[in-house]
């Protein structure tokens, strides 16, 4: 592939894009006695405090006094210190940073959704219940699995829900078993979730292709193993091409095949987990279905299950009655119970339904675009950065810093230098099985122009690593702050402002 790179020297120290000052005081430091940022109607009932004084506080010492205009400026200024998808490619591998359609934001704010209460009578909440029911049906169709719970608040809670259902199903047969198998390439949430579901974790070493080794699996898969938690495709962006054999081995010993569906965006609408022998799988609405990441949440982690796990779904479920009305079913005696209040992150359901409806039966184009873009980046950087595993790439590609370490450049430096070229860094140092990993996920919403610019920047950084390593090691040079002292932050903890 030929990439034309504009040959000019990259941003250097002192070449600051942001004019000073970038420092924004804390909102508490902007506070000034006597200022007001709100207005309420006068109290139209008698004033009273009918609570004993010992149970009350005298005031809210330390809280702010600030006007609306100052709040507007404060949060606008703060926002400008953030990188965002709307600015440029945000190739954070595993996180699926794709464009967030704004119509989804608009419809989620309709009063019938944003100002609706989960405990209003069902007969006046039919639209909300129908929405949840419809989304469940669609996710069930996309996964090829029998039913879906929308309740988990995020992927990690979805994992826990899934493994608890497995545990309940096994316990019913008299033995919940003791162990969950997890490949060494897995997300950290997998072992943590298995632990909180009461299981020991046994890590499986990946093979030279970067995928699960069938011999390793066969040896580990005993009748003491409750489940294999498998990310498909895995965190290297490689599809487990022996998935049917994997399912056969796991099922052969009476275990369940759990799929971490964080990477569902690479095959949604193209292949169905249910057909692969997967029994239970969580999805991240904020990844595959583009609900906004919001600086770190809210997420939503629906879990799809095969027929065998349906009795154990969290309660309540949404049901359509024979008269066509929708209602909640709390009477599910074998349910694992609840993982949180109410139905889940309903506002995310609204956005996901809007998103899926926009694609409809063309939803497979999401996966086609994501896989095409990742492969294009791979082609553009092959030979420039080391690729430990060269199996076919799906939606993300994991390079490493191996070619650059000779000049003392590490993955972190490359990531920081990307900031100077106007990009967010890829995921750094994950998955753990690739030392110095650079995990790049462009998503389907990046144009060829954007990909070319990213590839050009990465190639340029590779050259700089040889010719001018200092500029890479000391990057970033153009961001609101330079490298921050994270070790110092942990050693000398300051976790709040004090009056």
């Amino acid at each position: 592939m030929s990439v034309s790179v504009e040959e000019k020297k990259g941003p250097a120290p002192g070449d600051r894009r942001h004019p000073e000052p970038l420092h924004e005081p804390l909102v508490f430091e902007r506070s000034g006695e006597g200022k007001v940022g709100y207005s309420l109607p006068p109290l139209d009932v008698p004033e009273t405090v009918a609570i004993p004084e010992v149970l009350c506080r005298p005031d809210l010492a330390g809280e702010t006094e600030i006007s609306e205009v100052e709040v507007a400026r404060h949060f606008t200024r703060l926002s400008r210190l953030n990188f965002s998808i709307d600015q440029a490619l945000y190739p954070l591998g595993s996180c699926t940073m794709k464009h967030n359609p704004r119509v989804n934001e608009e419809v989620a704010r309709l009063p019938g959704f944003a100002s609706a209460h989960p405990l209003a009578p069902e007969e006046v909440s039919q639209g909300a219940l129908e929405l949840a029911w419809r989304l469940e049906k669609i996710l069930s169709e996309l996964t090829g699995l029998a039913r879906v719970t929308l309740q988990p608040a995020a992927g990690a809670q979805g994992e826990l829900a899934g493994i608890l259902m497995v545990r309940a199903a096994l316990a019913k047969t008299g033995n919940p078993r003791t162990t969950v198998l997890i490949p060494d390439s897995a997300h950290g949430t997998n072992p943590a979730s298995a632990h909180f579901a009461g299981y020991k974790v046994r890590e499986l070493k990946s093979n030279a292709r970067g995928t699960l080794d069938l011999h390793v699996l066969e040896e580990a898969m005993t009748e003491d193993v409750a489940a294999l938690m498998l990310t498909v495709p895995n965190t290297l962006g490689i599809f487990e091409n022996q998935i049917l054999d994997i399912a056969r081995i796991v099922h052969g010993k009476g275990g369940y095949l759990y799929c971490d569906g964080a990477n569902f965006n690479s095959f949604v609408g193209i292949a169905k987990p249910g057909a692969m022998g997967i029994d239970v799988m969580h999805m991240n609405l904020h990844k595959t279905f583009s609900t906004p990441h919001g600086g770190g949440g809210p997420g939503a982690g629906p879990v799809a299950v095969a027929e065998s796990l349906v009795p154990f779904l969290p309660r309540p479920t949404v049901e359509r009655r024979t008269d066509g009305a929708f209602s909640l079913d709390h009477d599910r005696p074998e349910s694992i119970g609840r993982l949180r209040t109410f139905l889940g992150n309903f506002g995310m359901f609204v956005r996901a339904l809007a998103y899926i409806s926009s694609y409809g039966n063309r939803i497979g184009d999401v996966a086609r675009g994501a896989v095409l873009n990742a492969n294009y980046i791979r082609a553009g950087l092959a030979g420039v950065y080391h690729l430990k595993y060269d199996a076919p790439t799906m939606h993300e590609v994991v390079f490493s810093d191996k070619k650059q370490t000779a000049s003392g450049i590490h993955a972190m430096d490359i990531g920081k230098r990307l900031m100077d070229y106007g990009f967010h860094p890829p995921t750094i140092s994950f998955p753990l099985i690739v030392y110095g990993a650079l995990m790049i996920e462009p998503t389907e919403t990046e144009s060829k122009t954007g990909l070319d610019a990213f590839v050009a920047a990465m190639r340029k950084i590779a050259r700089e690593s040889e010719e001018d390593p200092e500029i890479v090691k000391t990057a970033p040079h153009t961001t609101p702050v330079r490298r921050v002292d994270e070790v110092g932050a942990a050693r000398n903890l300051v976790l709040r402002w004090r009056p």
Partner: protein
Amino acid sequence: MKFLPTSDADRSEMLRAIGVSSVEDLFASIPAEVRQPADLPPPLSEIEVRRLLGSLAARNANARESAFFLGAGIYNHYISAIADQMLYRAEWLTSYTPYQPEVSQGTLQSIFEFQTHVCLLTGLDVANASLYEGASALVEALLMASRLCRGRTRAVLSAGIHPEYRETVRTYFSALGFTSVEVPIGPDGRTDPKALARAVDADTFAVAIQSPNFFGVVEDWKVGSDAAHAKGARAVAVVAEAVSMALLAPPGEREADIACGEAQSLGVPMHFGGPVLGFLACRAEHERQIPGRLVGETRDADGRRAFCLTLSTREQHIRRERATSNICTNQGLMALASNIHCSLLGKKGLREVALQSHAKAEYLKREISKIPGWRIPFGAPTFNEFVAEGPEPASPLLSRLARRGILAGVPLSRWDPDAPNRFLVAATEMNTREEMDRLVAALKAGGTGDRQVPRQDRP
């Protein structure tokens, strides 16, 4: 498709660069027998998406178009226009976890400010960057207490804790070998202090009470703290109506070790129950056992103040199965909304909202108690919510009222079949005296009468 920026010409060029002839070739590692297209309807245009979602939204009664008195853990409070409009900014909406502090100072500083608001409200030293919602926040608080009292296996919970919170605790505990014991509330609506103290033993790692409790009754955190500390357990304070913290004595002052719960009422719309905003705060000496993300202050290479995620060695992406929690995300955008809200209202506004909510609930409680055949079963002080008991089953009555544009309350029968006539009524600064009088008149009339015209002019 307008979300996909790749033209046919681009695609051809890209395929050539990759060295394959079609996009389908890139999917060769997926076995043919599992490939199945999705059976979904054709794509919708933006106009059709608005129409579809609009038609679903139109079939939900909501606080903008009703006289609204629902609570039970989700409350209708004032949110300034600016708090929501700020969330539309792409820099907040479309960014992610601030793993790279140099390009995430906005999010990091906002979380640091949110942590400070939570500390000021709870009277504790350290707060995390938020958790999913109230029930799982209680679970995380209890698991934290279990780590602080290693080897102990049981938690004592007041039955005044939100029933869905308690159910969530049972779900999480089931696999971990922990048990939860529930202590009933007394006839005045408060947790019985003697029963609570009796329930705590040397195997107890936590004692948790909620205030205002599920029935709206104000509890004294110290009752929980004393019961816990007498046996070396940790006291957990649960708050489901966070506005109350602006009026009531904070958990830290009444010797609670951990405060947790739901902060939806501080700037987050009701969203049919989610996304909302869990929080957790603790004492400084326990900060290394806190679950979830934390933001700390530090310096950059040029010596300027900067913020970053800290103590990550507690977290799953580093510690894996030995992490303090499996939680990965926080509730970023909701924590931002709450930071904006708390900053705007601040010292005076948060307090005024609490005082107005309380005064309105007191008015409504008094007026309902005057209706013949009606009573307020619990005598202890309440904050902005209370149990009302009428002469007939609550559920059908509430349904009749809902059809007339009055969302009058939450029936308790789902959790307590022995109290079919009881329901929870909440009031906030959003309620007017006129609509409270309308509710009282409707209750007097047994929920019958003229259909009310839905109001479109509500804030």
